[in-house]
């Protein structure tokens, strides 16, 4: 890969050991993937924040780094609400380690806003055609597909390297030729809300690391596209998709010849999976907190809820107390911008947590079964928390005792 004179001098260590390592990571990954050069990035979004996922190993590495990021950089969700962790049931030892991780990033100039939806808090981070170094899988999918920006699936260290250098290697989804759809999905029914997450569970498993293109009968909201992409990044490794007539690059793409038809029954089957219905289909073993046929936690906001989703939750919780414990996860910025919505939600007994989510927080592990409106959480909670999960529409998730 071609390096400029300045990039070479960084690689030779003339700008210190941290930048030398960062340049080594970027140039080696570039060589492996056949990049021609490094390109400037507009922003970085860095995964590897929850102490639950990176542990002492990650904390040590981040703490040893020295330097300052040179592009706007933001963090993935942490393992707890940085203020209300006790309410979540997180213990003090975990909290102390989690704070150390966030402080270590802050020392490097990273904005300590912990969210998987950076596009809701600052439009400057990503616009159509911008090159980015993002590492949270659903944020990557949203940036590539819905915004039309360009990012690969960066790992935590490579995203941080890009933040320190201000560049990333030019390969993969940065290039037009890799943004062409490889597999078509024709959806044979109208979809709404959590249907899109369920569709993502199905399509991601089929698409793998390919680029799906969808033909749908209904016009999805951006929040529904967010749910679709997040689920496909969890059930497969999808980083970019197109929706005919909807997403910004779809007009330049042709619908693939290889097409899979998805019918209503298949979507419905996803809602019937998991706990709460049957306990026999592979969900019986390996879970720590008993069989738990009935969900005992409702967890919404994976990815983090937007203002419009908070509004819908507030409306659904208007005149009753939800039957179960309810956590709604969003970013600190969206919460602070919508105090009335948050008050209306919390008046019902539901809780709005920020900086974190049910997937990366150890607080989820004590429950028996999680009910969620997210295809991504539905896929990840069993593996990452050892807790069963079921997906349902938001109105079912927030129903009161008597409305079953």
């Amino acid at each position: 890969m071609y390096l400029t004179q300045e990039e070479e001098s960084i690689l030779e260590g003339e700008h210190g050991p941290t930048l030398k390592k960062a340049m080594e990571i970027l140039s080696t990954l570039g060589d492996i993937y056949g990049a021609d050069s490094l390109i400037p990035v507009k922003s970085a979004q860095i995964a590897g924040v929850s102490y639950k996922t990176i542990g002492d190993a990650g904390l040590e590495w981040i703490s040893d780094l020295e330097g300052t990021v040179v592009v706007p950089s933001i963090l993935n969700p942490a393992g707890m609400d940085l203020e209300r962790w006790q309410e979540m049931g997180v213990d003090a030892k975990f909290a102390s380690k989690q704070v150390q991780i966030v402080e270590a990033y802050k020392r490097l100039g990273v904005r300590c806003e912990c969210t998987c939806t950076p596009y809701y808090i600052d439009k400057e981070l990503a616009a159509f055609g911008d090159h980015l170094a993002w590492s949270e899988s659903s944020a990557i999918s949203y940036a590539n597909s819905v915004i039309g920006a360009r990012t690969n699936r960066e790992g935590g260290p490579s995203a941080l390297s890009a933040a320190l250098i201000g560049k990333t290697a030019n390969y993969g989804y940065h290039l037009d030729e890799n943004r062409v759809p490889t597999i078509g999905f024709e959806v044979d029914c109208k979809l709404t809300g959590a249907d899109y997450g369920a569709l993502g569970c199905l399509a991601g498993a089929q698409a793998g690391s390919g680029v799906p293109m969808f033909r749908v009968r209904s016009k999805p909201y951006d929040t529904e596209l967010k749910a679709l992409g997040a689920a496909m990044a969890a059930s497969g490794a999808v980083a970019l998709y197109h929706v005919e007539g909807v997403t910004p690059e779809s007009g330049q793409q042709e619908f693939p010849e290889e097409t899979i038809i998805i019918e209503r029954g298949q979507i419905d089957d996803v809602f019937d999976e998991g706990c709460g219905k049957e306990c026999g289909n592979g969900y019986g073993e390996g879970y720590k907190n008993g069989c738990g046929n009935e969900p005992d936690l409702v967890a919404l906001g994976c990815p983090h809820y937007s203002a419009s989703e908070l509004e819908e939750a507030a409306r659904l919780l208007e005149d009753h107390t939800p039957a179960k414990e309810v956590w709604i996860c969003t970013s600190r910025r969206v919460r602070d911008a919508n105090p009335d919505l948050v008050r209306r939600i919390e008046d019902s007994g539901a809780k709005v947590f920020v900086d974190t989510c049910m997937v990366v927080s150890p607080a989820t592990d004590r429950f028996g079964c999680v009910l969620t409106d997210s295809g991504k959480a539905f896929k990840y909670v069993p593996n990452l928390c050892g807790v069963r999960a079921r997906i349902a529409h938001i109105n079912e998730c927030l129903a009161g005792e008597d409305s079953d």
Partner: protein
Amino acid sequence: MHILTNAWQERIAIRTLKGRPISRGQAEGEALVTTQSISFLGSIDPDTGVVFEKGHELEGEDVTGKVLVFPSGKGSTVGSYVMYQLKKNGTAPAAVINRSAEPIVVVGAIISDIPMVDSTKPDAIDTIRTGDRVRVNGTSGAVYIL
């Protein structure tokens, strides 16, 4: 028997493997070879360097100071940080040789100053035997069986 003898002689003759440089630096150690991919997270104990993954070919083996030869990384990206922790604890492999490098191990080797090469000719897993004394040059890509 005759074929085996030939293969053995051929192996004796190969003292140098030419690979692609991945992570800079040089190191020497006893080879520990597996045909199975390695996930550093949930597979190798960072305190002891011992492989604890049930059913892995290397289960019970200590990677400390070894030239670890395996096809590729797999699993969680946190594996990169586990390699860093092994290094800090003095339990890291001396060098890594992969058949095909992927980002988890690449990033782990670079941040941990562990020399690494991949794509050697002839193939490292077919050529190097556990117990061989091996020198790895991660800057040039050369691997020497001593």
